[in-house]
Each structure stands twice: as C-alpha cells, then as structure tokens.
C-alpha cells in the first residue's frame, strides 16, 4: 500500500514561487488560479520584522471536509491518500470550497478558453501563433486515471466546475514526482510514500520537528511542514498575488 505525503521544508523555502509557476505550466491552469500558492508573510514592526514563506498546495486531508460535503461524490479520497475532483461529475455548487479551511479550491468562473493569460487577440501574436488556440488545457491529461478510471487530472478546465491541486496525479501514477517538487531549486519540497516507515520521506519526517496546517480542526492533512512554525495571528501577507478573473 502506498500513502503519498508531501513535506514542505520551511527552513529551505526562500519564497521564490517557482513551484507556483511550475504548477501552472504543468497543469495549464487558467488566469488567477493557483493550485500551489506561496504566502510571503511578515510579522512584527520595523525594525524588528521577520519574513517567512509558506507554500500552500492542497493539503489532501485524510479527514477532508470537502469530501464530506460534496453532494454528488465528485470530490473523493483515494486509497493512496490523494483527494481528487472528478470534473465530469462536479455540478459546480462550490460547497467544497467553503468547507475547505485552506482556500485551495478554484472554480472555473468563465470559459477556460477565454481565461488564459495573454492578449491572444493581438494581431502581432496572431501572426506568430497562426491563429491557433493557445494551450489552455492539455488534451494528454484529459483521460481517466487510477483504479476508479475517473477524470481527475489537470487536463480538464471546464466552465462551471471545481478544480484544485491533484498532487500531479498523472505524473505520480507513472512514478514521477509532482511538478512543484521537481522544480523547487532548493529542494524545499519532498514527496513520497509514508506508509513504509523506511522511505526517505518517512525518515525525514521522523527525524525533524514538524507540524500540519490548522491541525486543530481535525482534518489530518497529508502535507507536513518541517522547520518553522505555523503562521501566527500576527502575520500579514506581503507581495500577494492580486490575481482575479475579469470578463
């Protein structure tokens, strides 16, 4: 049995947000959507201030509030620990988004083909692209995954359904690491099986002090933070990503 866990080493994270970029490219997410997000946080008053960084993928909780509230079972928990969204079944009620205390869910408010980055109507760009549709979704990912054979990977950005971090299920299933983990230039992110106590990830967690985000809510996240502390009530976000969607 495999149980996937992600470890975030806060002592190493430098807040470069390369993981966010990698996620967007790997999963072709549309405008304003951050399956992986890195908080840049500041605490204290000048000159005694301290900056910390907090990467926030989906926590893939073992007791996931979003799975509990989904009225149609589109959001579900897999045997290997992943929490996924079946975008072929999702009805777009957004209850999962409100049940989730971490704010990791992103709804497709508009048509994905209209919500990708760049001014693709620009004549100069049209000359380069030859009028072709830019890659707002990856057809290679739009196929069923896992034992359940459900449509869960990053291929599907459809108007009116929910999406979120998949731990790059399409990569993990063929033994590769999620895009954010591979891209991190300082190896602050680790990923692996923690069902076996002798894997490198299991040993790393055992040997280091760690915490989980909002553990007191009983959600039992599968993302473990090593080094650093949970964000206190005093921190505030700096250099935040002001990214919304406009029509």
């Amino acid at each position: 049995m495999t149980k996937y866990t992600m470890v975030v080493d806060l002592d190493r994270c430098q807040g470069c947000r390369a993981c966010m970029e990698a996620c967007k490219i790997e999963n072709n997410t549309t405008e304003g959507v951050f399956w992986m997000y890195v908080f840049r946080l500041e605490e204290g008053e000048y000159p005694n201030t301290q900056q910390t960084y907090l990467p926030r993928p989906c926590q893939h909780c073992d007791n996931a509030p979003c799975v509990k509230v989904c009225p149609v079972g589109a959001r579900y928990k897999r045997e290997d620990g992943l929490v996924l969204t079946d975008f072929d079944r999702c009805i777009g009620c957004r209850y999962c988004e409100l049940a989730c205390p971490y704010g990791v869910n992103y709804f497709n408010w508009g048509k994905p083909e209209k919500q990708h980055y760049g001014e693709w109507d620009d004549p100069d760009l049209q000359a380069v692209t030859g009028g072709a549709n830019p890659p707002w979704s990856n057809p290679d990912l739009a196929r069923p995954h896992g034992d359940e054979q459900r449509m869960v990977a990053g291929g599907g950005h459809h108007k009116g359904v929910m999406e979120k971090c998949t731990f790059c299920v399409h990569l993990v299933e063929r033994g590769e690491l999620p895009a954010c983990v591979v891209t991190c230039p300082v190896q602050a992110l680790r990923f692996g099986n923690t069902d076996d106590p002798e894997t490198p990830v299991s040993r790393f967690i055992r040997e280091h002090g760690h915490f989980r985000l909002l553990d007191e809510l009983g959600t039992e996240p599968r993302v473990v933070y090593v080094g650093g502390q949970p964000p206190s009530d005093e921190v505030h976000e700096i250099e935040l990503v002001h990214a919304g969607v406009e029509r």
Partner: protein
Amino acid sequence: MTTAVTQPDMTREEVDLPTLPQGIGHLTRGWGVFVAIALAVVGFGTYAFMYQQSEGEIVTGLRNVGTMGGAPWGLYVAFLVYFVGVSFAGITIAALIRLFNLQALRPLARMAELLTVVSLVLASIAILADLGQPLRGIVNLFRYARPQSPFFGTFVLVISGYLFASLVYLYLGSRRDAAIMARESTRLQGLHSFVAAGYTDTPAERDRHERATFWLALAILPMLIVAHSTLGFVFGLQIGRPGWFSALQAPAFVVLAGVSGIGLLIVLAAVVRSVCDERDTLDEYVFAWLGRFLAVLTIAYLYFVLTELLTSTYAAGGREADVTDAILTGRYAWIFWGSTILFVVSLAGLLTQLLTKRWNIGTLVAIGIAVNLAAIGKRFLIVVPSQTDGMLLPYETGSYTPTWVEYGVVLGLIALGALAIAVFMKLIPIVELPEEVEADAS
C-alpha cells in the same frame, strides 16, 4: 358573492357565463397591468439567467475565497435560504389549521399552501442559478446522491420531499373547490373538472378527503422541521468557516423562517382581502392571530441573535472575532444594524397592538414587509461575511458586490412568484369556499 356558485340565476346581471366567486376567470384591468409588469421582470430575469449560462458565473460578482478574495456563495444562496424560509409559514399554518381544527383561520389555509409551493419552486430555481452546471446538477444530485452531505437535506428533502408533499396538499384542497366550481358551465369548466379529477364532493368523498389531508398535515410537520434544520446544517456543520460553525444555526433557521414566512403571509392575506373582496372571511381576528404568532416568533428570533452575539463577542478570538467585527462595526454593519432595527421596530409595533388589542391591517402589512427585508439582510449576513472575512490562513480580507446579473435573476424570481400567485387567483379560489356552500351543494 358566494351565492353565485349554487344559484347562478342570482347573478347581478344577465350574462352568458355565470359568475364564479372571488373574481375567478374575470380578468380586470389592474390584474392585467400587474401581470404585464411581472412578465417583463421575469423576462429580464430569464435574460440574465441565460446570459450567465452562456458566459459562466464570471458575469456575477462571485469569486473564489483565498487568493481571489471573493465569495463563492452570494445573493443566490442568500435568497435560496430566504425562499425556503418563506415556505415555512405556509405549510405550518395550513397544517396547524387542519390538525387543531382552527375554523376561523380556514380562509388562510389555501394561500398559505400556495405561498409554500411557490417559494419552494423559487428556491429550487435559485439553486439552479447558483450551480455552475445546472443541467448536470439536476441529474447528478439524484444519481449520485450522498446523504452524508448536508446538501442532501436541502436538495433531496426540501426540494423533492417537502415540495412534493406540499404540492399534494395544495392539490387535495384545491380539488374540492374545483369540483364545486366545475358544476357551473363557464369557460374554466374544463380546467376545473380536470383539477377535480373525478372528485364530486359527496359526503363520503369529503370524509375521505378530510382524513387524507389530516394525515398528510401530520406527516408534513416533522418533515418541515427536518428540512429547515438541514438548511441550517449546511452552514452550522462547517468547522473551517468562522461564524458558521454553531449549534444554533439549525434552530435559528427554523425561527427566522417562521418570521419571514408569517410576515409575507400577512401581506398576501391583506392583498387578497382587498382584491378578492374577502373582508368578511379575512377579518380582524385572522390578522390578530397572525400578528400574535409573528410577535412570538420575532421575540424568539431576537433571543437567538442576542445569544449568538454574546457568545461571539465575549468568548471568540482570532478569525471568529474578525467576522463578528466585520458584521458589527465593519463593512457589513449597516446591514446588521438595519435588520436589527427593523426587527425591533416591528416587534414594538406588534406588542403595542397586542397590548391595546387594536389591530390595524395597514400597520401589520408594513411590519410584514419590514421583517422580510430584515430577514433578507440576515440571510445575506449568514452567507457572505464568513467567506470574505473568515479565512483561517493569512489571506487578505475579501469583498463581494453582486452584479446586475444576480440582481436580475433574483428580481425575476420574485416576479415569477408574484405572477404564479396572480394567475392561481384567477383559476382556483385562493380562499377556500365556505362550508355553507358545501352544505347547499350536497
């Protein structure tokens, strides 16, 4: 006017068609204007709805919580909750009349049932407006129904069970009146015979009818408490959303549902009283009874507000306090204090009339409208601030401003409800035909 039913030769003037009671089948100019306006608003709402379906909910003011700093649930859910709330009063009053045999209130029963059915239909349309994939929703909510989700209560219990039971209840009552009216040869005779569906109101049939409605009323009452409570649980069970997680949500939902429902029933009863010339049946006693009921429910609701307020200001810290601050002193303060003042003023008006024993229908109508505006405000405050100000991770505070699409759909829904009631009034008696007629007829 009731004599016309049994003795068609006594109609005021010689016309080809006999006159039916309560202006049924007789279209007045005022009615035509009202229906035209309602149709126009419904048309606008339909346009807004279709526009949203084609472009996606990006045309609404709704956005993601967290990095987008928005609210995924807004006006649609607030009005869904409000409409389900309004449905409370109708069927409660209708069932109470049947169970406790409150003869003096019988004229209220039909319009109360109608209010329930209409508001539940509006609630289900509001759900569809909120869904990103409404067509898929209609199928999947039943195909993959999960009772573990608090939404199961809202969708399956409220919309199917409760709406279906109320429809049957409304139909059973209407059938009797339709059977009586089908004896007249009017343009509507075909419709009335169809609605009567073979029922002819013989003593044996009437006996069976009374028994069936009694047991149905008995079955609807617990269903009603369950349905309204589950809507409270949609919010109350969410530990990750400060301001929602509270055991008070379910009971408070039921009580506020009663306040808004009775308020609207008072307004509807006053309209019917003047439009259908029902001054004798919908007398001061009926309004005094509604006023007293509304006063009791308002007191109970204000008690809940006070309890919630004390708990959240005295004990709460962290994000829970942020949400409370936003409601009490922040951006949402005007809604909170506006609603609270409306409730308190309405209660004062009700208590004054209660103590002086002089009930003024005009004042009661104003109170009915006031408590409904206040209830809409409170529903908005339950839904929205916990999303914009209640993120547990250090996201920036969000905001939510509805767009014309959302206002359009909501106004369209209200107009649709008014239209449905107006059309119903011209087809089936909105006030049950009195007993004497029955006696004469049989």
